[in-house]
C-alpha cells in the first residue's frame, strides 16, 4: 500500500530547506487551502454531471450529450455561465446578511470537506476528535440557510429556511447517534484511527446487526441533512418556488448549488469512512493471498470507488421516492429513527462489551 505521507513529508522537507519553519508552515497552509478549494470545485463539477446523467438514466433520457464526449464539457460551460451572470441586488433587504449567507454555507461545507481521508496519508485535518469536528463544522451551514431565508425578504424563502432549520436540527441527532454507535465499535474518534481499525475487516461486517442498522439510519439522516430528495422540502419547487435561495442569483446561487452537491459527497464519504473502511482495501481475516491482491489497488481508488457507490445510492433515493410532507418528515425522525438509534446504541455497547463482533 503506497503511503502518501512520503510525498507530503518530502514537500515539507523541501520547503523547510529553503525557508524558515514558520514561513514553510504558512506556505504549506496556503498550498493545502488552494488544493482543497480546487478539489472542492472539481468534485462539484463531477457530481453535477453525474447527477444529470443518473437522473436522465432513471427517467429514460440521455442527459447532456452535445458538448464534448458524453456531454462532459457541459458542466464546465454551465460553470462559466454561472460565473459571468449578474448578481442582482434586492431592495428592502439586509444587504450585509444577504451577501454573507452563501459564504457561511460554503465555509461550513469546506471545513467538513477538509477532514475527508482521501487515501493512505492523504488527509488535511486529522484531529483527535475528527468525526465530531466534522459533524460540528457541517452544523454551521444551517445558520447560513436561516440567514438567507430571512434576509431575502420573501415569504417563500423564509418558509423554506424555517423548514430547513427544523429538518437539519432534527436529523443531526440521528447522524450524531449513528456515528456514535460506530465510535463505540472503533474506540476512537480520530478519522485516521477509524480507518486503521478496519484493517482486518470493514466495520459494517465487523459490527454486523447494529452496524447495519446504523448504516441505514445514517444514510436516511444524511440524505435529509443535505436537503436532497425525498427530503428536499426546503426547496420544494412546486410549493416554494426554490425555497431559501429563491432570491439569489449568479454565483451566490452557485454557492448554494455547489455546496449542496459537495455536502452529498461529504455524507457519502463519511459513510465510506465509518462503515465501509475508508481507503482501506477489503481485507478478510484468514485469506492472506486475497488480502495481498486487494492491496495492489491504490487506496485513493478504493476511497473514490466506495464514495461513488454511496453517492449513487443517495441519487437513487432522490429519483425513486416521492417527497415527504413536513409532518411526515419530523415524525419519521422523532418517532422512528431516534428510538431505533438509541436502542441500537445500547445493542452495540452490549456487543462490544461481550465481544460478539468479528
Amino acid at each position, binding site marked *: 500500500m503506497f503511503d502518501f505521507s512520503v510525498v507530503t513529508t518530502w514537500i515539507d522537507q523541501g520547503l523547510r530547506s529553503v525557508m524558515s519553519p514558520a514561513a514553510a*508552515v504558512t506556505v504549506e497552509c496556503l498550498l493545502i487551502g488552494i488544493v482543497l478549494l480546487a478539489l472542492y470545485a472539481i468534485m462539484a463539477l463531477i457530481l453535477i454531471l453525474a447527477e444529470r446523467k443518473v437522473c436522465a438514466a432513471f427517467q429514460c433520457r440521455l442527459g447532456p450529450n452535445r458538448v464534448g464526449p458524453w456531454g462532459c464539457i457541459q458542466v464546465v460551460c454551465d460553470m462559466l455561465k454561472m460565473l459571468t451572470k449578474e448578481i442582482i441586488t434586492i431592495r428592502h433587504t439586509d444587504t450585509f446578511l444577504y451577501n454573507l449567507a452563501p459564504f457561511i454555507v460554503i465555509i461550513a461545507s469546506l471545513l467538513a470537506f477538509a477532514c475527508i481521508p482521501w487515501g493512505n496519508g492523504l488527509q488535511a485535518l486529522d484531529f*483527535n476528535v475528527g468525526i465530531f469536528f466534522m459533524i460540528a463544522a457541517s452544523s454551521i451551514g444551517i445558520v447560513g440557510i436561516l*440567514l438567507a431565508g430571512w434576509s431575502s425578504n420573501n415569504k417563500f424563502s423564509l418558509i423554506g429556511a424555517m423548514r430547513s*432549520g427544523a429538518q437539519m436540527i432534527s436529523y443531526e441527532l440521528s447522524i450524531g447517534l449513528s456515528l456514535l454507535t460506530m465510535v463505540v465499535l472503533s474506540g476512537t474518534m480520530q478519522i485516521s484511527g477509524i480507518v486503521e481499525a478496519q484493517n482486518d475487516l470493514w466495520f459494517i461486517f465487523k459490527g454486523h446487526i447494529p452496524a447495519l442498522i446504523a448504516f441505514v439510519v445514517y444514510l436516511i439522516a444524511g440524505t435529509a441533512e443535505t436537503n436532497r430528495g425525498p427530503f428536499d422540502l426546503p426547496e420544494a419547487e412546486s410549493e416554494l418556488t426554490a425555497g431559501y435561495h429563491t432570491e439569489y442569483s449568479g454565483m451566490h446561487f452557485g454557492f448554494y448549488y455547489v455546496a449542496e452537491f459537495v455536502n452529498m459527497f461529504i455524507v457519502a464519504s463519511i459513510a465510506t469512512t465509518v462503515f465501509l473502511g475508508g481507503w482501506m482495501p477489503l481485507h478478510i481475516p484468514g485469506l492472506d493471498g486475497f488480502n495481498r491482491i486487494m492491496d495492489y489497488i491504490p487506496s485513493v481508488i478504493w476511497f473514490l470507488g466506495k464514495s461513488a457507490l454511496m453517492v449513487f445510492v443517495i441519487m437513487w433515493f432522490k429519483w425513486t421516492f416521492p417527497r415527504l410532507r413536513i409532518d411526515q418528515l419530523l415524525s419519521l425522525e422523532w418517532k422512528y429513527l431516534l428510538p431505533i438509534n438509541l436502542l441500537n446504541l445500547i445493542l452495540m455497547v452490549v456487543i462490544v462489551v461481550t465481544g460478539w463482533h468479528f
Partner: protein
Amino acid sequence: MQDAILLKIVFYFLAAAIAVFSVMAVTTRRILRAATYLLFVLFATAGLYFFLNYSFLGAVQLMVYAGGVIILYVFSILLTSTDKESPSPLFSLRRWIAMIASIGGICLVAFLVLTNVWPEVHAPATDEVNMKLIGHTLMGTEKGQYLLPFELMSVLLLACMVGGILIARKRS
C-alpha cells in the same frame, strides 16, 4: 523566533476579532445582525481553542454555540420580532443607570486585572488532549471527575424542557 511571531499574529488576529465583533454585536440596531456578530465572536473563540491545540473544546464550541445556541437565537428572532420596528430610545433615567452600572463593571474588572498576580505564562500544550482522558474525566466518580455535575445539568435541562412544553401546551 519566527514561530513565536506567527503564533502572536494568529493570537492577536483572533483576539481583535473577538473584541471588534463583541462591540459590534451590542452596538448594532438590527437584532439579527447582532446574532450574526455573536456567531463571529463564537467562531473566533473556537479558533482560540484550536490555537491552544484543544480541539475537543473547539469542536464543542462550534457544535453547541455556533451550531446550536445561535440557531435557537435566530429561530426565536424569526418567530418573535418583525425587525421593522426600530427600538425606541432609552429613557434618560435608564440610560444613566446603565452608564453607572457599566462604569462600575469596568472599574471592577480593571481592579481585578491590575491587582491579580498572574501565574507563570505557559506555552500552549503541543499535543492534543486525548479523547479517552476527557471521557473518563467526564464520566468518572472519583476526585476531580465530573459525573455528578454532568448528571445534574441533564436533570436541569430536562426540567427546563418539561417546563417549556407545559407553558406552550394548548389547554383544551
